[in-house]
């Protein structure tokens, strides 16, 4: 997919017209340049400043020159491979290709043998990973159920052990904290036979989520930097809540979340130009009746569709929530 191109071949649901895409893009650049994002973590701020951003260290406010944003979008590979331990289970993303990932993260499981509803365990995760590994419909795996029975401080590492030993497809993990993220990367590198081998064939996908509206926390900037240092694909995913954490309008929300995601992408591309990126969304509405954010709402799918188009426009593979 080339960069900044309008698709000519949408035969199904098309939520954004060409002029809408242009308007969202333009508004995003304007927002990032003149209003800026709230980004935390001195290391990240230094990186942004070094690349030409206007950084206010007192307020953690970063303003982005539009050319830097455009260059970063252009630097993102429009197609890349999410590798598995077994190359025949690799998944190529980009263009019009569609792949599926299982959802997570449950804290309970219906025991497949006793049918009892109980808290999930590490063994459950092993079993689910192996199950998804065998299912053709599942291309990429994410933590389906949490390992509730292990020391929670290193839960994410137990989960990594459970999955990596039962999966030959690409594994998209969710970790907090730089320490655990480093250890997780070490585990994957050990499997592949070194960091260089892991960079060549990344069997893991990293993730970082901005905090709407317009904020990226230090934990996330650290993970983005660490992942880009190792050349690992990073899923930068925003979950805006229309009317709650982003504007009530879908267009306003798309601009807001676009700015957040691009803010993270810029960091990744400065650290490692050409780093594979997944532009991620799980944006939905805030239901004003219950103050909850249903991922079953039609707006969730509408935003997913919009992000699909944005991804095609930017030439960046996307990751959207399914309903």
């Amino acid at each position, binding site marked *: 997919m080339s960069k900044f191109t309008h698709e000519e071949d949408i035969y199904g649901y098309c939520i954004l017209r060409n002029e809408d895409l242009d308007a969202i893009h333009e508004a995003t650049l304007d927002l990032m340049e003149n209003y800026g994002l709230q980004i935390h973590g001195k290391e990240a701020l230094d990186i942004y400043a070094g690349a030409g951003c206007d950084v206010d260290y007192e307020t953690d406010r970063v303003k982005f020159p539009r050319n830097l944003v455009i260059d970063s979008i252009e630097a993102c590979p429009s197609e890349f491979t999410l590798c598995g331990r077994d190359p025949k289970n690799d998944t190529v993303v980009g263009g019009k290709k569609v792949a599926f990932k299982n959802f997570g993260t449950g804290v309970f499981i219906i025991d497949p043998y006793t049918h009892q509803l109980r808290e999930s365990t590490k063994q459950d995760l092993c079993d689910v990973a192996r199950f998804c590994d065998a299912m053709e419909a599942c291309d990429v795996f994410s933590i389906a159920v*949490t390992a509730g029975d292990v020391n*929670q401080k290193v839960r*994410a590492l137990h989960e990594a052990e459970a999955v990596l030993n039962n999966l030959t497809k690409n594994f998209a993990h969710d970790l907090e904290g730089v320490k655990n993220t480093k250890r997780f990367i070490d585990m994957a590198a050990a499997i592949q036979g070194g960091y260089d081998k892991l960079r060549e064939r990344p069997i893991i996908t990293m993730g970082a989520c901005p905090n709407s509206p317009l904020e990226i926390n230090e934990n996330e900037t650290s993970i983005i930097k660490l992942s880009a240092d190792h050349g690992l694909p990073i899923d930068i995913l925003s979950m805006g809540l229309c*009317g709650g954490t982003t504007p009530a309008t879908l267009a306003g929300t798309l601009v807001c979340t676009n700015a957040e995601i691009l803010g993270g992408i810029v960091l990744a591309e400065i650290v490692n130009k050409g780093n594979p990126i997944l532009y991620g969304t799980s944006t939905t509405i805030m239901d*004003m009746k219950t103050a909850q954010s249903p991922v079953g709402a039609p707006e969730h799918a509408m935003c997913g569709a919009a992000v699909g188009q944005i991804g095609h426009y930017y030439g960046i593979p996307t990751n959207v929530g399914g309903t």
Partner: protein
Amino acid sequence: MSKEAIWEAAKQSIIEADEDMALQALADAEAEGLDLVDLLSTGYSAGMQELGDQFGRGEIFLPELIFATEVMKKASGEIESKMDMSALPSNGTLVIGTVEGDVHDIGKGIVASLVKTNGVEVHDLGREVPAQKFIDAAIEYNADFVGSSALLTTTMTVQKDIEEALKEAGIRDKVKTMIGGAPVTNRWAEKIGADAYCEDASDTVNFILNWMANK
């Protein structure tokens, strides 16, 4: 103007989120030399309670509730500045925050807002709050309630740490603990020994008011 009419106007001004009406009721009460603290705790507050119930029943939605909360804050702010508030029977003190490692605070903000407008003294510790900080604040503010919010399955565990830390500090039986957040359930509350799982802002207010009434 009769006292009943003023009290009714105060109540209605909250239900309709009408700041002008609220301030007018306050002015009328002052002109009649009526007790402003009482106006707050039985006039305006009656409006908040009504709205809280309506929100709980799904008859009004979040924006209406928040507008009304803003008017309530304005009215109570005006009254607090004029009066000696020690005369006001407090509905308890709540320490609330989003737990360490978690930055999700929209729900917690709504809870803090609504609880505050029900005459509860609220100390909002913000987000990414370590367990010990909840305890320190509970001691500092002589809290009756400690509320914690977690959105991630991974940060829920801090709610358990809070229970432990309260016990270690020897103040567990001095407070009621409430937990909330998307992955949080009654089951989790039972498991960690929290006093209540509160599903939303209304729930939290009701728990606090019921507990204070039965104390």
